[in-house]
């Protein structure tokens, strides 16, 4: 669904993990160019087994391929693309999202954790549209969509829309607005798993606008 919402011709950065699935779901007839912050525009599908190149990897350090027309560049240029607003869409995972679009996705803040931030703070500060793709709750059933994040922030007011297994919701200055629900679920069902008020913003067709 996230893939279907990204306009044709967009330059897109995909976070590590679930967001990588977006590349497999691009609708027919639409072209997205994928950027990886370690220096490649035009990321292709994973290589066939045995064809991996340790010098051709994505930000998750997994082997990838480069499409015809791809370009390599150094890290300062790569983050100039990000910070300079040249990348249209970034799809990221989340630990927590607040109703006004604050994102926490790099640290639980536990004292013995090894802090590691990577490029997440630059991506949310610079990319024009930030989409979050995540499970609606944690493995323990705790809501990830909250009034305010309790974990250390990646960025303030940066998330546009959240896609979960239960719903699609926009983060707005007035809080979360549901745009679509998973089949068979009511707004009340989804509200029960959400840690902030969820307004009904579904269009009459029930599809995300």
């Amino acid at each position, binding site marked *: 669904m996230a893939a279907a919402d990204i306009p044709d011709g967009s330059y897109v950065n995909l976070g590590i993990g679930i967001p990588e699935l977006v590349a497999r779901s691009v609708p027919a007839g639409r072209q997205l160019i994928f950027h990886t912050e370690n220096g490649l525009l035009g990321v292709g599908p994973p290589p066939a087994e045995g064809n991996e190149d340790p*010098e051709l*990897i994505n930000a998750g350090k997994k082997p990838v391929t480069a499409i015809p027309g791809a370009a*390599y560049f150094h*890290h300062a240029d790569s*983050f100039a693309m990000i910070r300079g607003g040249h990348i249209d869409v970034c799809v990221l995972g989340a630990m927590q999202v607040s109703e006004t679009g604050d994102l926490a996705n790099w640290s639980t803040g536990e004292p013995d954790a090894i802090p590691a931030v990577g490029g997440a703070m630059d991506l949310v500060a610079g990319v024009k549209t930030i989409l979050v793709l995540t499970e609606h709750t944690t493995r323990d059933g705790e809501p990830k969509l909250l009034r305010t994040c309790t974990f250390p922030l990646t960025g303030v007011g940066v998330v546009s829309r959240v896609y979960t297994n239960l719903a699609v919701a926009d983060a707005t200055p007035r809080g979360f607005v549901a745009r679509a629900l998973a089949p068979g679920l009511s707004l009340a069902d989804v509200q029960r798993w959400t840690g902030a008020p969820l307004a009904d913003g579904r269009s009459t067709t029930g599809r995300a606008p």
Partner: protein
Amino acid sequence: MIDKRVGSPAAAVADIRDGATVMIGGFGEAGSPIELIHALIDRGARGLTVISNNTGSGRVGLAALIAAGRVARVVCSYPRTANSTVFPALYRSGGIALELVPQGTLAERIRAGGAGIPAFFTPSGVGTVLAEGKEVREFGGRRYVLEHALRADFALVRADRADAYGNLTFSKTARNFGPIMCMAAACAVVQARDVGDPGHIDPEAVVTPGVFVRRVVQVARPAQESRLVREGAVYP
């Protein structure tokens, strides 16, 4: 006569002294100058500050340098990776200091250091713990945090091709921090797969111009870090 070629990794790092600040290229194993790092371990310099995106994996390369107790402090964006155990254990025991930097800010601080820009304002990290204690200023209604340039005494970088003047090309995503680290170090030391005379590289294809490079050493068949890690190799 300018000829920046040196005969061995050992000769290329022979003057790295205790307490030096060393930038080390690479994003994971891609572009990691593993032979130069191993030569630095052999050299024995201690109390190093290392500026690198990661902290290595297994017990080879950068992880081995840290395991050998040579590194006092790292400046880094992502100090844990698959098979990264040396740094986390040492960090938890208080044996090494960490300055955590968003990856794009790390890259820009290095680029600025090489370009004669002492500091700059960036939107990355504003409103987060990584901006705490730093100056924040508003431009055009948006808030930016002041970040300072990074420079180093040495950079250890892996390139693909090089010539005697220090002109470089890189291989795919192994380019990553290499070009900007060459710019930001007083002495950039490069290991390259293929090293030749001036004219070896088409001027239109040069990625890092030789003015940024001090030494070039040929390592025709560099070790592959992930393979060494899989085999359980330990350096030295």
